[in-house]
Structure formats: structure tokens, C-alpha cells
């Protein structure tokens, strides 16, 4: 029995590599200063989907909502063994919060044939862990969060081990189901050389259009459109065009997309200012350390 898996993924700024110029003077984030990466736990989700395919068969589809640059993580998924990749890109998706994002993703997932949806637990730019459960609710399917091990799939039911922070739980659930996968679950496989060779030229239509515009700065809109049509035609023959969907194609209700569809709004952003404190430097000598300890005893910090 084969199972079809859908893996929603996200391209995120690498918040672990924050440098001095990561923050603008006005306290906002200088996204351009950070490398864009495949959200780490989404790689764990993809790995779990690929291992289901290895064991039971079926198809693995990755899907991301993002800017045209997110084509990079779709290709990385194809290199690792995903069968299909889909980019949802549309200006009207901008400023979506987790609720709007889960709504848009739900419209896309509904277009696919799926048994299991696998999400990373959380993305490192927001760390909210909300989109997984929100998407499950929108799809009307159960969720198993914090999955650290997939135990089995049999008779239309999946069993998995959840890491509950203060222990673990083994659960069984009917299909279709949504899992959120944690980083302890597995070691994501690396790119497969043969796949890399095959898919390194795979592109989304918008990437093709942007590249042609860059290569032909003097061409008119019509000329560019003709060039794009030709290029997409050539790549389609080689099965190298990555699917690209917009909100119209999804039939999404715009009231629930983007900024308008997002109940949460930013009131204020502050960069973290380290508060200056009354501080003293203590020499690493026996006497100074002993004086410090006595001071802490006399003000009752140490009893």
C-alpha cells in the first residue's frame, strides 16, 4: 500500500548567523544581510516523507509559499528525492500571518492527492509552531505534533512516537493526518548526485521570466513574453518546469489571504537593547572573590 505525502516547506533567513548588520537602525530586520536557507525542521519532515516513500511507495510533493527565490529550496527537495515541487507565489500573499498562511496552504493541499501531510514543527524565523496545527484544522484532519519517530503505517492507520518535552507518547491515528516533525526525528539525507544533475536546471516560470529580463535588459514586454514561452516550452519537454500557483489558481478567498486575512498585526518592533547595569569587575584573585561572596552573603543573596 503506497502513501502520498505532501510536505509544506519554508525558506527562512538563517537567524542563527546573525551578524552586526542584521538589524537596521530603526530596529527592523535587515533580511538581505542573512542567508536564506531551507528551514531546518522542514528538512526533517521531508526526510520522514522520503523514508515513507522508500518503505511503502507513493509520491512526495513539496510545496512552499514564498518569493520567487524560494525556488532554491524546491530544487533542494528535488535533489533529495521529492517527486514534485510547487511554488505558491503571489503578491497578495504578502504579510500573511500564520492563520492566512495556513488558509492559503490548505487551498493548495486540497488540490493534491494526499494521505499524510508532514510539516516541520516550527520555522526558525518566527518559532511559532502554529502553521502545522492550523493547517490540520483547516483541512479537517487530525494532527500528531512533535513526532520523533514514525512507528508504522498499516490498515489505514499511522502510529508515531511524540516527544512531549517531559516524556513521550506513542499514538495511533487514522489517515489522512498531519504530522509535525522535530529535529531529533532523523538525519536528513543529502542531495543525490544523479538527481542534482537532473534538476539543477529546473526552474519556476517566474525564475525564467526574471532571468530573461536580466539577460535582455532592452527587450520589450512582448519580446520577453515570447522568449519566456519558448524557454518554458523547452524546459517542459525535459520535465524541468517547477509548478507555480497563484491565489486565483487556488481559488482562495482573498478576504482570508495576505494582510487583510491576517488578524495579527505588528504594533511595534524593538531591537533587543541590553540594559546597562550597575556592575563591578572582580579580580580573579582569592581575596577579591572572597570579598564578593561576603557581599552576596551580607545582602542575603546567598543565605
Amino acid at each position, binding site marked *: 500500500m503506497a502513501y502520498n505525502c505532501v510536505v509544506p516547506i519554508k525558506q527562512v533567513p538563517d537567524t542563527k548567523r546573525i551578524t552586526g548588520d542584521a538589524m537596521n537602525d530603526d530596529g527592523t530586520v535587515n533580511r538581505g544581510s542573512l542567508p536564506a536557507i531551507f528551514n531546518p525542521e522542514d528538512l526533517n519532515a521531508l526526510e520522514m516523507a522520503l523514508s515513507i516513500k522508500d518503505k511503502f511507495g507513493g509520491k512526495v510533493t513539496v510545496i512552499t509559499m514564498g518569493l520567487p527565490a524560494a525556488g532554491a529550496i524546491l530544487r533542494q527537495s528535488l535533489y533529495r528525492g521529492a517527486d514534485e515541487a510547487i511554488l505558491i507565489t503571489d503578491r497578495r500573499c504578502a504579510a500573511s500571518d500564520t492563520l492566512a498562511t495556513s488558509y492559503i496552504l490548505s487551498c493548495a493541499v486540497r488540490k493534491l492527492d494526499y494521505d499524510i501531510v508532514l510539516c516541520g514543527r516550527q520555522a526558525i524565523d518566527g518559532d511559532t509552531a502554529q502553521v502545522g496545527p492550523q493547517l490540520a*484544522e483547516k483541512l479537517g484532519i487530525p494532527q500528531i505534533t512533535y513526532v520523533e519517530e514514525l512507528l508504522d503505517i498499516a490498515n489505514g492507520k499511522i502510529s508515531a512516537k511524540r516527544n512531549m518535552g517531559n516524556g513521550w507518547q506513542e499514538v495511533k491515528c487514522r489517515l489522512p493526518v498531519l504530522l509535525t516533525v522535530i529535529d531529533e526525528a532523523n538525519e536528513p539525507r543529502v542531495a543525490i548526485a544523479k538527481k542534482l544533475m537532473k534538476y539543477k536546471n529546473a526552474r519556476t516560470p517566474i525564475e525564467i521570466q526574471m532571468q530573461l529580463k536580466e539577460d535582455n535588459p532592452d527587450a520589450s514586454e512582448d519580446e520577453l513574453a515570447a522568449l519566456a514561452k519558448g524557454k518554458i516550452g523547452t524546459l517542459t519537454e525535459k520535465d524541468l518546469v517547477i509548478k507555480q500557483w497563484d491565489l486565483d489558481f487556488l481559488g482562495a478567498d482573498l478576504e482570508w489571504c495576505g494582510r487583510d486575512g491576517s488578524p495579527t498585526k505588528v504594533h511595534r518592533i524593538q531591537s533587543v537593547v541590553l540594559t546597562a547595569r550597575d556592575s563591578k569587575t572582580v579580580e580573579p584573585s582569592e581575596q577579591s572573590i572572597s570579598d564578593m561572596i*561576603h557581599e552576596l552573603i551580607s545582602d542575603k543573596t546567598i543565605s
Partner: protein
Amino acid sequence: MIPVNRNGEVWVFAEQHEGKLEDISLELLGRARMLGDKLGVKVASVLIGDNVKSLAKELCHYGADKVYVLEHPLLEHYQANSYARVIYNLIHKYEPQIMIYGASPCGRDLAPRVASAAKAGLTADCTDLQIGDHEDKQANTVHKNLLLQIRPAFGGNIIATIINYDRWPQMATVREGVMPMPEPQGNRKGEIIEEEVHLTQDELPLEILKEHKQEKKVNLKASRIIVSGGAGVGSKENFRLIWDLANSLGAAPGATRAAVDLGFIDRDHQVGQTGTTVRPSLYIAVGISGAIQHQAGMSDSQKIIAVNSDPEAPIFDIAHYKIIGDLNEVVPKMIKAIKMRV
């Protein structure tokens, strides 16, 4: 989504496991009390389970004016689907203006499911909640008395304040340990409202096969003094120094994520954004550079001693006592000084 309801109550989800309330729910009641008083509305707690009514009194002692009790045999064990369903129904019945949950594994599993069903906003992992106004410059309007949902974002590098002025209730999950536990008042009484619950087995898709709970090896939140080690300690063997210093002070040993990842100590000891948030009387940081993610979990400590050989280490920016030196020499001197006092 429910309409904006200025008379709506402030709700706290009462997380209980096997008939015992979780600390986070009591911490939240302290803050809910403050928010409710500021808004001039009642504070209510939502208590769900089977045979849990006896816990309602305790919730009143910690600040609830009302407790909605939802009991049903199918609610005995927590599940996202069933709990979200009954909370969703309750929200639509009473239209609260605010609902807060602990950012525990359970709260983070449940709250987004409720938010998605209710088409309401939700902010994750708040470290502070306040009431304030929001000026919408584009629409030239001021939204008064909103829930300001304050949380670190972008790996802890910024603090974002989030609001939700139209699609209510305003909901948030709150990190454990960031809000002080209120003093219970044994004579405080509240109204206990028993709600009817209708559920079918179909709304319980999860079958729990096996479960194992392990008590955390250390209770960092309850410790007056914490001695933490970072990657700078160098090895698991050398981490003995941290244990020794902690023992000499009757303190709990803590660690940075880096030290945990290097295998120096168990993850239960981790302090910081992805670990436990602490606010002890004294925090001793040994061989810790002071990454922002670590500081997020300990910067509210009353006194901080930092020991590091690198004078540029960011931990010194927030330390009250800075000791620039080799921890292998400094820590034994500290232990000696502490032992001498007795």
C-alpha cells in the same frame, strides 16, 4: 471569529494533567487578573477534563472570578481535536475578548487549532502581556485597550508587540516561568459554571498506545540560585566544576544550549529561549559567552555573576559581577570562599 466585544471576559485555559493543575495556568491567572482589572471585566478559567470540578476552587484562589467546567468521559485525556472543539463552542457562546494559554507542549498543540477553527488571531510564546492602545495611521483611528502581545522574534534578536483589533478573541500562548506565580488567597471565591458537553468518539482520532512521563531532572524555576556552564567549560569531565559550585551553594546546575548539544549535561538543565526561562536571586554564568538566545532565558535574574576569559563576551554586558579569568582557577576559589563562611 467573533465580533469585538468590549464587555467580554479574560479567559485562561486551565491545563491539568491527571487531576493536577499545571503551574503555567496559575501563573497566567495572575496576569489575567491584572488585565481584567485594567479592562474592568471578569476573569474566567476554562477547566476541561473528567472529574476535574474539584480543581475549580484552586483556580479561584489564584484569581479567577468564574470557572467554566467542561466535564465528559471523552475529555479525560487531552487531545487537540476534542479540546479545540469544546473551546471553540464555548468561545462562540460567551464571546470572551481575550483567551490565553500556556506555551507548553499541550498549549502549543491546542491553541493554533482553536485559532484556526475560530479564524481568530494567535501570538505564540509571549513573554509579556499588557493592555494598550494602537494607532492605525492609515485608517486614522485609534484602537483602545487592546491586548499587547509581546514576544521575542527572529531568534531573539527583536522584541515584537503584536495586536489583533478586529478578529477576536485576542489569543496568545505564554512561555512558562516568565510571569510570577501569584499568592493564592484561600478565602477568594468564584462562580462555578458547569457546561454541557456533547462529543462523539469521532472527535477523538488519537489512540494513546503508550505513555511515559519523566520528571525533569532539575527544577530550575524553583531554584533561588542557578550555576550554569557553557561551551567554555570545555568537557563533560570539567563540567564537574559547575556541579561542585552548585552543590556548595545548594544551587541548581544549568547550562547553555551549546553545552547541552556538546553532551556536557542533560537537556533538562538548559536555560534560554529553547530551554527554561528563569529569574533566580543569583545566576552564575561560567564559560558562557552570552548568546542572545541564552540571555532571553536568564536576563531577569536579580544578580548575575559572569566568569569568562574573554573580556569581550556579551554576557558581561548584563552581569553585575564580572570576573575576567580562567574558570578553572576562578571556580575553585569561589567554592573555597563559600566553604570558608561556614
